[in-house]
């Protein structure tokens, strides 16, 4: 029985956080005892963890550089006597790796979920420095692994485990009612974007594409779900492009699966991704995806098979992809079905969990931690 901790900055309902909860809840209880810790603050996913019987701790980091939080985290790791600590997202990766080394945690695994082009010289320096502090850096796509190999992480410390998507039964929805509820005509064609409104997602490109399509596809409406630093300027751009009837900014929503079930197509115009969760969720719901051929996205969406890909920033091609799928519901349904098939074959949640479980046990064995045999009952 290995004792495992999942350490992540917050428990917000976001991509990496959802993967973490899926993993924590899914690790077989006869081989692992699992806990979770939020470095900065808790969030709505704490309830999901509680439901799965995973105890949660909040460390409460307040400052960007917070030595007190580091000390609290180190003490917590020592007291918990964890065999394996897995860290997620930059802040937890940095604090977690330092604290785990100080606390003498035998196995440290670092999860990287994006081709983090935002990282500047400081972040890259920290990543390079700390690369040797973890036994494995696990990227959720080929693009992520290549990116960290390029930053100088040695090949034998890199591992690729695809993100997983749970095959939950899609919520039953009345698509017309959902359209009316968000302020669109009941028979409108609905495109859905879900993501953080940050430069990486290039939502301004999507708005320009909608401007381009306003006359050739007058029935197209777009719901933009998510929040972020660019929300104000994007809403302003939508007004300047006179798109206010056709685009709704819905902010953060807890019913994304329901909105997705009502949508005709899911779109993602990003500059870069790791392995976009929203695309996996669209595929498992058999929705076609129109996206940019961004690093990460290309590993999920197969152009012409499960959706349409356009070069990053190519507005006319993105517009054409959207228009073609909106106009041809039969083809859209076929691409959606192929997407679901692919998600079930390549991106199963249980496969992701099994690969992490196997990785933990391999690394533990290499450190001489023979996993204790599961207590036999009866």
């Amino acid at each position, binding site marked *: 029985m290995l004792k495992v901790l999942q350490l992540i900055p917050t428990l917000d309902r976001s991509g990496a956080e959802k993967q973490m909860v899926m993993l924590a809840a899914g690790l077989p209880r006869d081989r692992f005892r699992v806990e979770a810790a939020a470095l900065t603050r808790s969030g709505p996913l704490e309830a999901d963890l509680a439901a799965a019987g995973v105890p949660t701790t909040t460390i409460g980091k307040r400052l960007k550089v917070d030595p007190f939080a580091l000390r609290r985290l180190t003490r917590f790791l020592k007291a918990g006597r964890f065999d394996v600590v897995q860290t997620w997202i930059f802040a937890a990766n940095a604090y977690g790796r330092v604290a785990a080394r100080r606390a003498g945690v035998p196995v440290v695994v670092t999860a990287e979920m994006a081709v983090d082009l935002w990282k500047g010289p400081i972040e890259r320096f920290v990543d390079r420095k700390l690369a040797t502090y973890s036994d494995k850096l696990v990227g959720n796509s080929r693009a992520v692994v290549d990116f960290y190999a390029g930053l100088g992480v040695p090949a034998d410390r890199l591992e690729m485990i695809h993100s997983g998507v749970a095959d939950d039964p899609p919520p039953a929805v009345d698509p017309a009612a959902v359209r009316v509820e968000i302020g669109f005509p009941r028979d409108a064609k609905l495109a859905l974007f879900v993501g953080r409104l940050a430069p990486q997602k290039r939502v301004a490109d999507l708005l320009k594409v909608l401007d*381009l399509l306003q006359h050739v596809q007058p029935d197209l409406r777009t719901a933009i779900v998510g929040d972020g630093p660019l929300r104000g300027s994007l809403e302003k751009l939508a007004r*300047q*492009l006179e798109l206010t009837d056709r685009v709704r900014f819905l902010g953060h929503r807890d019913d994304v699966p329901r909105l997705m079930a009502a949508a005709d197509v899911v779109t993602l115009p990003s500059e870069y991704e790791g392995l976009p969760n929203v695309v996996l969720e669209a595929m498992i719901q058999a929705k076609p995806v129109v996206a940019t051929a961004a690093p990460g996205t290309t590993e999920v969406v197969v152009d012409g098979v499960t959706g349409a890909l356009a070069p990053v920033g190519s507005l*006319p091609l993105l517009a054409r992809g959207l228009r073609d799928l909106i106009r041809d519901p039969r083809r859209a349904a076929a691409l959606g079905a192929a997407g679901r098939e692919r998600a079930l074959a390549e991106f199963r949640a249980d496969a992701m969990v099994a690969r992490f479980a196997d990785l933990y046990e391999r690394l533990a064995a290499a450190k001489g931690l023979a996993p204790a045999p599961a207590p036999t009952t009866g």
Partner: protein
Amino acid sequence: MTAEAPDAPLKLALISRRYPPLIGGAERVLGYLAEALAREGADVSVLTSAVGEAAAAPAREEIRARGGRLVVHRLPTSPLRFVGTWLYMRNLANWLRSNPVDLAYVSMLKHDAHAALGVAARRGFPVVLRPEGAGDTGDIAWQARGNFGGRIARRCKDADAYVAISKPVRDELTAAGYDGARIHDLPNGVPIPIRPWQRRPDWRDAPRASFVGRLAPEKDLPTLLSAWPIVRESFPTARLVLVGEGPERPALARLAAGLGLGAEAFAMPGATGDVESELRASDLFVLPSSEEGMSIALLEAMALGVPAVASAIPGNRRLVVDFKHGRLAPPGDAGALARTIVEQWSNFDRAFHMTRAARGRVEQQYAIRAVARRHLQLFRELIARKRSG
């Protein structure tokens, strides 16, 4: 020396004998550039002559510019030939002698350039010259035939740098013996309106095509007028509006009457200070010119994103790729021009698509803000080079 710290505002003299409120493409370009340089933090003094309509404008006018400062000085001159030029040159030199600047940027390689270079030789500030055109009406052609053209040309060769707005301008400078290493390619820039042009919901009831520019012979407006009755065979309510003023007005009015174009089909409302509103009220921008360097009117129409038809001459081809950013029609061919206009209106969704590509292209390559920044970078390099000897 006026700017000690490297980030102190640059004191720039932007010299052009013609400047807004005078109406014309070159004047508008300089106006945009002066404002954009000020917005990027420069302290810009525009030196121009109080000529024509500008005589009624104040001699010193401070224009609001966030970031830096923009002051227009309209120097006294005279309507008499020779005397006017001499007075303007003397006042220009006096101003430059008594107001230290870090750099002078001069539009056209004519008298103003001669005066500025004369003062700069003693004061030591760099001078950048900017030809406004090529060909028969260009600066090099003027030097070959104008009064004192030879003397002015010799002194112009002493300038620290030249800004070429197009390849023909660069080629002419090189051919005339100007130092190629000192020629810098910087295109004209236009502001990008925040709101793009939108299709009018009822445009089909009375589609309107507009030309914006001077009513001058090189615009070949007779071809456009002759095309109009043909356009009206397909779009019987189509209106043609020529926005601008110029020497060809009487001839154009006569031609319109001869073609039977009444007030419902044709109008020449004169010049306007608000081109954008005219274009927003239009369903097509048409530029039938037989000669253009880099048309500001076309750039502005593209930046706004209004459907366009232009003559397929080299200057327009540099801006518009046919079927991508708008449509091109063979020059001087009224039938072909009419057909292209009718095609744009018959495929209005496709025309709309091209408008957004055109706007994207101008945003990428001809946005005044980016052009101003490239100017400032050049200016800083020249100033640093001059000071380090």
